[in-house]
Every structure is written in structure tokens, then in C-alpha cells.
């Protein structure tokens, strides 16, 4: 009786087919039933959700409220919430309750949405499998022995398992798109600067970007209308007039020029994955799109450039976790050095420490030019590759990930292999471009994702292509077995 997409739930609420309280209870009940097996939520906020649903129902009863009023959502535990713990999935912040809301949370609350809880993630968003969380790994609802991807693995698993109709995510090197692909949902990383970073705990400031994760492209568009916009508290937020992200959804794809980068179809791509991508391209061609091969000559440098820049920035961003003012503090520090070293040694997990070390090294005197300086040069070259490519095409299409979801524990001992699961996603972050992942098939019962990369501020085009594709296919509606 309950709808599953944001669009349909919102229509039902408006029509009075059920109340926000009803749908909120429905999701709370599903979370209670299925989440013990998935671990997609760190904190479930039942009381707060019920109160928010009651407020939404009051508005709806008066015929007030906006397009999202009363719709529940799950919030990645990286967005600060006033009065509710924001852990970033780290022991370091296990006791941290922010005295402020992130701009994204403020906006979604303002839109009348109901926050069901805070979702699990890789610690400080560092990871591609959701195995680095202090609160334990998240399991993929398609196969409980497999990872959901990361870092927004909790959000992806929750949406896929219908434990929330939509969730927030953040994407620094693929953290929205890779788990969306591995869990069979749709996720959008907007253009850098579209969504405010205020109150979104920083991993790598020049790459981090918040965005929505949902079942359909149309739902993403609705969420973008609420999440995006200039924020005076974030200096890197772009000043652009508000726009309606749903406005191009219905546009036909006739004449659309799709670029297929040769580098994204080279060795390393699983043949079955390649088949899924080719099939999606076939659907888009049938809808009137033209495809052309494009060259991204520096694509191979994206991973090394990304891991230098992201690690360098995180080594500095995470310096504030020193046990002095908030967060984890070791017991009985002997002196200042002991306070620092033990608080950080105990508070951070292995992957976070690895990246702080890498980043500290990359910024050190004598190494800066060879690493950080060089990575910034590569970043510009990667950006120029895209600028050249977009002179001839409207969107760039390829696989989101080289393989489907891998087994838990399979890559935890080999960080370099783990990092390669981001091989197609990091370039969009380095260039600051918008990119979307949508489900495009099942391989051995596991979802395969296709990535669309757009030009700056061209999210409406990505949403248009994905929406049109989703009118022709049903992969995005496939339900995982553990839901």
C-alpha cells in the first residue's frame, strides 16, 4: 500500500492516501526488521522522526507544505545534526553532538522532510566498501556476504533495501556513485559548489560534494531542488540563481551526443560489466542519442592524483581531532604529546591513519613539489581533458565501477586494489564535474551501474538522460532479495 519512490510518496501524502506518520512508522518498522542484517543505520531517530512527521501532517492537513513535506529520508552520518550525534562512523566522534545543523539538513528540514536516522559510512568517508566504519561494516542487500560500496554505503544499502526512500550522501572520489552502483540505486554527485559543505564533516575540502541517493532520477531531481543553492557560510559555494532540476526530465534524447571515453572501456573492465554498459548505450541510441568515442588522455592519472590531493587535504582537515576540545580523549594523559598521540591512535581507524600519513608525507618540505604540486598539475590536465571532450559531446558515459560488489574482507588487506574500485569515479571530483550513477543491469544477481558525467552545472541534462533511460528500463525498480 505504501509507495517506494519520493515522487509517488509525495503524491500519496498530498492526496491523503496515508499520512507522514503512517509512512514514517512503515519505514521505522522496516528498519527494525531488516537493518539488524544490514547495519545501514548508525543512529535511528524514531522519536524525532515521529515528531517531524506530526509537524508535516499538520501542514499537509492545512493544504500547506512543499513537494517534499512529510517524505522520510536517511541522512549520512557526516552531516551535522543539532542535538543528535554525528559520528562520521569514527570512534573519534562517537560522543560528538553538534550544536548546529548542516546547511543540507537545515534545507531538508525546511522542506518538511522527516529524518529517519543517520546512516553508516566508511570512517570519515575514507573507503570504498563501508568496512572502515567504527560501527561495523554494512552488508549489501543483494548479497549479505558482499560490500555495499563506500563511503556512502549505509545510505545506498538503506535506499536499496527500502529502509528509506531517499538518502543524503557525499562524494569525494566516488562515494555516492560507487555504492549506488553496487546497490542498484541512482545517485548524483553535483558540480562542486552546488551543495553547501557547511556542517558536512570535511574529508578533502576541494573534492567533497554532497548529493542525493534514490531509486530514480526523478527523485534525485526533487531532492536537488531542496538541497542545492548558494550558502553564505561556505566560501566555495557557487552563486547561481535557483533552478528547477526537474525541468528537463521529460525532454526527448533526440540528437543527444554521448561521449564514450576509450580509456573507460580498456583492460581492467569486467567483460560482463562491459556488456551491461553496451546494452545501456543501445537503449539510449534507440531513444535518439548519438554516440561518439572521446579521448581522456590523462584518465590513468586520476587515481594517483586523487589519492595525493585527498590525503593531503585530509591530513590537515583531521588535525582538529586532537582530544582537546571535543571527541575522543584518551584516559589519563601524562602530558600533551601523550594526549595527542593516544587520543588519535585510539580514535582513528587504520585507513584514516594511513591517509593522514600519506597526506602528511605528500605535503612535507622537500616532497611537496614532487607529490602535491605534481598532483595539482595532473588535476588541471584532467580538467582540460574534459573541457576538450565536452566541446563535442553533451554527456560522457561509461561504467561506474570495474566490477560488481565484492566480498566483505576481500580487499581490506590490499588498499591499492581497494583504491582501484574508484578508477572511473575520481576524475569527476578532480575536475569538479557533476556525475550520476544509474542501475543498468544485474550480473550474477548483482547490480551493475552506468556513470554519466556532465559539463559544469549541467545536472539537469544528466537527470534527463537517466530519467529517459528509466522510462525504458526497470533495473532501477529491481528489489534486492534482503529487503
Amino acid at each position: 500500500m505504501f509507495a517506494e519512490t519520493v515522487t509517488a510518496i509525495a503524491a500519496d501524502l498530498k492526496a491523503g492516501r496515508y499520512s507522514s506518520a503512517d509512512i514514517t512508522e512503515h519505514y521505522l518498522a522496516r528498519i527494525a526488521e531488516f537493518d539488524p542484517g544490514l547495519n545501514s543505520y548508525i543512529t535511528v531517530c524514531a522519536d524525532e522522526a515521529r515528531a517531524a512527521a506530526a509537524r508535516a501532517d499538520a501542514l499537509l492537513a492545512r493544504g500547506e507544505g512543499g513537494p517534499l513535506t512529510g517524505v522520510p529520508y536517511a541522512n549520512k552520518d557526516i552531516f551535522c545534526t543539532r542535538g543528535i550525534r554525528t559520528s562520521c562512523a569514527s570512534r573519534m566522534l562517537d560522543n560528538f553532538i553538534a550544536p548546529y545543523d548542516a546547511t543540507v539538513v537545515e534545507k531538508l528540514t525546511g522542506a518538511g522532510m522527516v529524518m529517519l536516522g543517520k546512516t553508516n559510512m566508511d570512517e570519515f568517508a575514507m573507503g570504498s566498501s563501508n568496512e572502515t566504519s567504527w560501527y561495523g561494516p554494512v552488508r549489501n542487500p543483494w548479497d549479505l556476504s558482499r560490500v555495499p560500496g563506500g563511503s556512502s554505503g549505509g545510505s545506498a544499502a538503506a535506499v536499496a533495501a527500502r529502509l528509506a526512500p531517499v538518502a543524503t550522501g557525499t562524494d569525494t572520489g566516488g562515494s555516492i556513485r560507487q555504492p549506488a552502483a553496487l546497490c542498484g540505486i541512482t545517485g548524483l554527485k553535483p558540480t562542486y559548489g552546488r551543495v553547501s559543505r557547511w556542517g558536512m564533516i570535511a574529508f578533502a575540502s576541494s573534492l567533497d560534494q554532497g548529493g542525493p541517493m534514490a531509486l530514480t532520477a526523478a527523485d534525485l531531481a526533487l531532492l536537488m531542488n531542496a538541497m542545492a543553492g548558494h550558502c553564505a557560510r561556505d566560501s566555495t559555494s557557487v552563486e547561481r540563481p535557483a533552478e528547477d532540476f526537474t525541468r528537463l526530465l521529460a525532454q526527448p534524447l533526440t540528437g543527444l551526443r554521448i561521449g564514450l571515453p576509450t580509456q573507460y572501456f580498456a583492460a581492467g573492465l569486467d567483460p560482463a560489466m562491459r556488456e551491461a554498459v553496451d546494452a545501456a548505450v543501445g537503449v539510449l541510441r534507440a531513444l535518439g542519442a548519438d554516440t561518439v568515442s572521446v579521448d581522456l588522455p590523462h584518465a590513468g592519472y586520476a587515481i594517483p592524483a586523487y589519492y595525493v590531493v585527498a590525503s593531503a587535504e585530509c591530513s590537515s582537515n583531521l588535525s582538529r581531532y586532537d582530544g582537546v576540545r571535543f571527541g575522543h580523549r584518551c584516559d589519563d594523559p601524562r602530558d600533551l604529546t601523550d594526549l595527542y598521540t593516544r587520543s588519535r591512535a585510539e580514535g582513528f581507524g587504520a585507513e584514516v591513519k594511513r591517509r593522514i600519513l600519506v597526506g602528511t608525507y605528500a605535503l612535507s618540505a622537500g616532497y611537496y613539489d614532487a607529490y602535491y604540486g605534481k598532483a595539482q598539475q595532473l588535476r588541471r590536465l584532467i580538467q582540460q581533458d574534459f573541457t576538450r571532450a565536452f566541446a563535442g559531446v553533451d554527456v560522457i558515459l561509461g561504467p561506474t565501477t570495474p566490477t560488481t560488489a565484492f566480498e566483505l574482507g576481500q580487499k581490506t588487506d590490499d588498499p591499492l586494489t581497494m583504491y582501484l574500485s574508484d578508477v572511473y569515479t575520481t576524475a569527476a571530483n578532480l575536475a569538479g564535474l557533476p556525475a550520476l550513477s544509474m542501475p543498468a543491469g544485474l550480473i550474477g544477481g548483482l547490480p551493475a551501474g552506468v556513470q554519466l558525467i556532465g559539463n559544469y552545472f549541467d545536472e539537469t541534462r544528466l537527470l534527463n538522460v537517466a530519467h529517459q533511460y528509466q522510462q525504458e528500463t526497470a533495473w532501477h525498480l529491481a528489489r534486492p532479495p534482503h529487503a
Partner: protein
Amino acid sequence: MSWETVIGLEIHVQLATASKIFSGAATAYGAEPNTQACAVDLGLPGVLPVLNARVVEMAIRLGLALHAEIAPSSVFARKNYFYPDLPKGYQISQYELPIVARGRLPIRLADGREKVVRVTRAHLEEDAGKSVHDAYPGATGIDLNRAGTPLLEVVSEPDLRSAEEAVAYMRTMHMLVRYLGICDGNMQEGSFRCDANVSVRRAGSEVLGTRAEVKNLNSFRFLEKAINFEVERQIDLLESGGKVVQETRLYDADRDETRSMRSKEDAHDYRYFPDPDLLPIVVTPTQIERERALMPELPWARQQRYVTDYGLNVQDADALAQDRAVADYFEALAAAAGDARAAANWLNGEVFAALNRAGMEIPHCPVEPSALGLLIARVRDGTLSGSMAKQVFEAMWQGEGSADEVIEARGLRQVNDIGALAALIDGVIADSPSQVEQYRAGKDKLFGYFVGQVMKKSQGKANPQQVNDLLKEKLGGS
């Protein structure tokens, strides 16, 4: 063989903004610990800095005053190090691309010569908080009220050759920043402080010696003493065959010595990199012109004008132009009094004495320049003697009204009537036969006695010059 001292200063100018450089928290001094630190100042997770536009305007103003280059685009960088009063684990500063570069500041030396000191750069940065080590037994308190207070760090070239030159440079910069209205100049509260890089070399050598950096000097006297101590220490060291090591030292005012704080070997690797949370500061020509239009006349221009237009001597002109409020008062007073020299004398004499007694600064002087100008005019037109004018000033200070009202109320009009004076003098001479005899016999010193008697009888109102002249005439003799 003689030694040459080489000094460069890094002056930390706290910018006089109401709120912090990257947050909306207040900057007022002396508040309860941690009551002026918001989430941004505390470095809580997820918070972001937003630049206070006022600090850019202030940096432009200093750049213009120093005839420096103002960067069309300058960049904030993170200086990474751990310290409990540094909440984010990094300080936001400027490194490779500062907002102001290559300026110059003219200073006047004790012998009257002018010297131009080159300014390498001035960059914007945030201040850290304060560690309080003595308030809690066994623990250190952290007060983050100061964290995020805007600073402009002004770095000079090693152009200074003595403690005296360094003090003159620091004083001139101190005068300039207050003139520009960008710093309150309060050194006790740390609003204006400096680090001194000191080295010595053999006279005639072109090579710089190894330097020591003496940190956190917050008075002109400490700067002078610290440099003198440091120079002596380095010369002693070198002459006894030792070597100066590059290090950071602290000046201990109680012992009048500098002490090693950390050597170059333990120096931090600050891992500077551009702060990705902030965009470059873009300064447009329009913005520069807007600030130029708001610039006050600079102290050295005023000094010059006081000498050429008002005919003051260089010392008086320098003294009056030092402080913008004093100079403004002086110019208004000179105009009202119609006599710049008299205005300068009054200001340097009675007015400052009264302000000092009251512990007040010139902006709070109860006697307006226009009112004091009228009083000076009454001296010039002979209504008042100098000493009477001082009484009138005192009354005006107490709020008894204008000069004319006080003169009227107290009946303080000077007696200029020769006939009346002559009668008074005759009376005095008649009453003092023995003194007249002694005076006429050659005891000149008694002249003062007669003057005093006459003034007493006139209740101080007699015109002293006229009394002198008439007395001499009537007593005759010597």
C-alpha cells in the same frame, strides 16, 4: 674590529575589526574566557571559514600608505602544527602569495636623518588562542577568545642597523596603523607586537650573519633591550670563538635577557598548502581607488606641512603629527586661534598637562579646539595675561563656560589702564621706603618684590609688561 648589527622586524598588527577574520564572533579584549569563540573559532567538525571583507580593506590601506604592491589575487594557506590553543591544528595565513608586497616606510632617526626601510610583505592571518598555565593546578586552561582575531603581519627587510633604528621603525609603523584606523595600537593588550630577527657581522661584510629570532616583544622598551642584549650576546659568542645558532629566543623582561626557545633543528615543518576552504582574495582597481579616497593625510605629510605652512620647528611638528587625533585637534585649534605657534604651545603645555592629570586622551578633552582658540585670542588682544589665561583654561576645563563667560564671571579682565596702574605703583612705592632706598642703592633683585606687590594689589589683573615698564620708569636708578 668592529661589528655591524643587522635587524629585520616582523610586526603583528591586530586589525581593529568588530568581528573575527573568518567568523562572526566579537573581537573585544578582556571578555570571560571562551565567551567570544563560536563553532568556527572552536574548529568544530564541519564548520567553514568565511572571510571578513573589512580586513581586506585594511590591508589595502596599509599597502597604499607603504607605496607597496597590492596583489590582484592573493591566497590563504594553511600552516599546520599541533598546539592546544590552535583549534584546527592549522593556522590560516598567507604564504606564497601575500596581499601586500614590496613597500617602504620612511623613519626619522635621532640625529634628524631620514631612513627608508623596505617592507618585504604584509600578509593576513588569524591569531591563535591563549594557553593559561597558572590558573588550574596540574592543568592548562585554553581561552579561545583570541582565536581567529585578524592580524596583518608586516615583515621588513633586514635594513635596520641598531636597536634605536628598530624602535624608530616600530614607532613609525605604530603611528601609521593608528592613523589609518586599522589598529588600536594597544601594546599592553597585544594589539601591536613584534618579532625581531637579529644578527651581527663584521663591519664592511656583505654577508649576513646567522640570526636569532626574538619572539613576542610588546613594548618599544623591550624591543630595544632585547636587541641590545642579543647583539651583545652574539658578539661575545663570536669573539670568544663560538658560533651563533639559528634559533628562536624569548625575551625575559624580569631578567633582561633572551633565552633559547627552540633551535632550527626542532623547527616545525608547517606543510603549507593553499586552504581549499577559501577562495583567493581578489582585489580590483576600483576597490583600491575606493580605499585611496578614504585615506587620511599621512603623518609625514602633516609634519611637512606644519613646518612649511605653520612655521613650526621640526620637533614640534613631529610631536603634533604623531597621533591623528592630536593633529586634528591642533589644526582646528590653530585655525580658531589664528596663531599656529600659540596653538602648538598651548597644546603641548596646558592641554597635555591637563589631559595627563585626568588620565585622558585628546578625543575626550572637555575643551573644544574652537573654545580654546577664543581663549588664545583673548591673550593676543591683551584681555588676559598668560597666567590669567591659565586660570581661565582651568575654569573652562571644569565646565564653567566659554573664555568670555569665565572672564566675565570672575572679573578677570587685565588692567591695561596706565593711569590706574601708575596710581597702584605710586602707592606701593610710598608704602615701601626702605626697599626703594635699597633698590636705588643697587639691590636689583628687589625689582621682583615691587612687581609682586603691584600684581597683588591688582589681584593679578595688571598687565605684567606695563607694570614692568612703569616700575622701571618710576623707580629710576639702575
